[in-house]
């Protein structure tokens, strides 16, 4: 046969391979096909194509593998068991940017399902190559590598520590400063996943200078970026007082309050989470937030959302009020109690009601003034009904009972106590009667003694 005909055979084979791998990659985008593909044994067919001579076939095979592994964890485990990962890691170091993107995509897809799979990725030495990819010029490669690192670090503290030990954090901080929005988002989410596990990891992230850049990005108009940035800052601030103070020193107040007015619900939620994590540590930090007008902003934010979005805001009010009576009074004058009682009555979910009940209890437990401010909004009957109702969860019952007890011990406002005399259970009734005696007895004593004229209590 002539040389041309021989070469034609090879060309046909190459064409066939290219077509196969492209079709598989396309079919893998649709979830309904993946079962059929799996049953047809696509993994074993794609594996040798990863080593193909033609670079396009390699890249498309990697992309198809990534999409398959992304779908569920059985396929991801098949990828791990088929010894594909060391190959990918080796060629990640050398190939061009499309291949790097596809390989990083496969690593991300495998690593996202469970800690064991992520550990398998770490064990085959992928972290060093991913960190090298973070230094690449192409922003798509950086994004894919950062995404993979973020998913690996998400699972638990050991994996996060492994990612940090590979030296990813300074490079991620550099990635945050890049102009591409998608890269910033992914880098911010990776930093958030790393710092959420333990204070040491958060300290590592802070030492790399991440806080200043994250604080600058709060002003960015992109809402998904704001979500990730606020989530990263709140994960850093939640661990200790020092970290929270460092976050506050980056001058996020009052800019963060504008995020509470954002259209995106999750931006609001993450912003109120950040404020809550800062407020819960010490009274001084809560004072700072109150002085910056944060309480009013959070109360407005609670009023404008529904459901789980409200929960961090409610908890923040509870933490602020719990520290001292002056802060609780500040919450009261910012009109927090009517809002909380609306939450208590409106919300369908029990855990949000429990949080609202707890917050109201923290506000009202300090002095008779506070208890009066809570009692005039008619919250106490609502709390009582929640405590008595059999449908409430146990947590809700416990919290509403504590709140009632705390408020009743200080409440001297009699019109609010009267309904309790009729329908309260005996253990609460005794507190109510005690309060009545406290209020009425000196009053009676004063009047009767004034009539007899003998003993006059000098006031």
């Amino acid at each position: 046969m002539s040389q041309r005909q021989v070469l034609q055979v090879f060309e046909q084979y190459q064409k066939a391979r290219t077509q196969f791998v492209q079709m598989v990659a396309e079919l893998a985008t649709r979830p309904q096909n993946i079962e059929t593909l799996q049953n047809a044994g696509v993994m074993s067919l794609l594996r040798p194509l990863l080593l193909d001579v033609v670079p396009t076939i390699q890249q498309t095979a990697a992309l198809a593998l990534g999409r398959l592994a992304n779908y569920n964890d059985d396929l991801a485990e098949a990828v791990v068991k088929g010894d594909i990962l060391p190959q990918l890691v080796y060629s990640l170091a050398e190939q061009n940017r499309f291949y790097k993107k596809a390989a990083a995509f496969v690593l991300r897809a495998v690593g996202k399902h469970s800690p064991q799979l992520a550990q398998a990725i770490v064990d085959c030495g992928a972290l060093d190559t991913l960190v090298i990819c973070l230094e690449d010029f192409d922003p798509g490669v950086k994004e894919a590598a950062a995404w993979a690192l973020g998913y690996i670090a998400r699972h638990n503290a050991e994996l996060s520590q492994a990612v940090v030990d590979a030296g990813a954090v300074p490079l991620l901080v550099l990635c945050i400063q890049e102009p591409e929005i998608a890269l910033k988002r992914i880098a911010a989410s990776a930093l958030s996943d790393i710092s959420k596990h333990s204070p040491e990891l958060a300290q590592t992230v802070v030492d790399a200078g991440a806080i200043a850049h994250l604080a600058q990005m709060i002003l960015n108009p992109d809402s998904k970026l704001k979500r990730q940035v606020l989530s990263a800052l709140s994960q850093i601030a939640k661990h200790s007082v020092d970290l929270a103070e460092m976050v506050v020193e980056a001058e996020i107040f009052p800019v963060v309050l504008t995020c509470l007015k954002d259209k995106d619900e999750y931006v609001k939620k993450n912003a109120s989470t950040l404020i809550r994590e800062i407020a819960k540590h010490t009274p001084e930090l809560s004072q700072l937030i109150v002085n910056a007008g944060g309480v009013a902003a959070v109360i407005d934010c609670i009023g404008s959302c529904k459901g789980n979005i409200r929960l961090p805001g409610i908890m923040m009010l509870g933490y602020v009020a719990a520290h001292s009576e002056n802060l609780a009074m500040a919450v009261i004058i910012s009109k927090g109690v009517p809002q909380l009682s609306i939450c208590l009555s409106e919300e369908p979910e029990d855990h949000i009601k429990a949080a609202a009940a707890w917050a109201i209890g923290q506000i009202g437990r300090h002095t008779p003034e506070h208890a009066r401010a809570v009692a005039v909004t008619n919250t106490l009957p609502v709390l009582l009904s929640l405590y008595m109702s059999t449908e409430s969860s146990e947590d809700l019952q416990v919290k509403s009972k504590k709140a009632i007890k705390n408020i009743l011990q200080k409440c001297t406002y009699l019109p609010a106590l009267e309904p309790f005399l009729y329908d309260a259970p005996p253990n609460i009734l005794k507190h109510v009667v005690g309060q009545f005696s406290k209020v009425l007895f000196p009053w009676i004593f004063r009047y009767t003694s004034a009539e007899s004229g003998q003993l006059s209590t000098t006031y």
Partner: protein
Amino acid sequence: MATLARLQARSTFVAQQYYFRNSVVDLFRKKEYDAAVKIQSWFRGCQVRAYIRNLHRITTVIQKWWRSYSGRQEYQLIVKFASCAMKMNLYNAMAVRIQRRWRGYRIRKYCFNYFYLKEYLRAVSETNDAIREALEEFAEMKEREEKKADLEREEKKRDYQARKMHYLLSTKQIPGVYNSPFRKDPDPWELRLQKAKPLTSQRSKAKPKRCISLSNWLACTSARSFPRSEILPPIDRKQCQGPFRDITEVLEQRYKPLEPTLRVAEPIDELKLARGEFRRQEWMRNVNDNMFLPFSSYHKNKKYIPLMNSSSKYSPNSYGSQHFRDENPKKWICDKDFQTVLPSFDLFSKYGKLYSKAGQII
């Protein structure tokens, strides 16, 4: 006898009278006795009563004095205590006054300033109002910006559509779709179409990104590259004077396509790519990825594993390295060692040094 008779007649009477007089006397006596007794008893009674009266008087005097004395003592005690109590009450009242003033002062100065708290709460509520206003303004501004951006996007879209639909413009002969003769005035789309510029189809297609590498130069057919054939002379060129060469030849010469040398035609890092290619092919073909090492350096990093027979639990046995004969002096029959009858080989004195430098295994 008469007297006797008379005495006897009178004897009973006398007896009676004797008895009677004696009994009267007895009665009398008894009366007198009783009277005497009465008088005496009365007198004695009076005596005793007087005595007792005296005693009473005396006792009363004593008791009176004693009671007054003890009453006075009690009275003094009562007065003492009452005065003490009065003084203490006074002191207490004064101390309460002092403490009241002091406590008020202390709390107000060091612990809690009520007015400051009121001030603070007022300032907090003012800040809250300011923040609420600022946030509302901010939200309004954002809304306005969004609406503006939306409107602009809509405008752009409509513009683009008008440019695409430009052919639907009405002409003098044929009224267009948006300019129906039954309408009073034309549809606003008509006016838009009038204002729009027609859209050329080429510009709407997105320009594909081409990676221009040197090897594609030869196949370059874009309008901006040099024309390779069908050479047309420029339109407004003046006719050249004189017997010059054929114009097609000249233009062919002038606009000759690039024929790069082999050196330029290949990419600059061709050697590296070729090496990489080669390495990849080799890697494909390899069964085992570990490199072959020369024998001399095969054992370089390998840890020496001594014979199990020659090593004990605590350290390797020196047999086989230090000495080659098993020496057990206890088993020797005599004290002396073997004597060498023949001299040792010279060969083994150069053990390890006879080999070449490359083969230095030891």
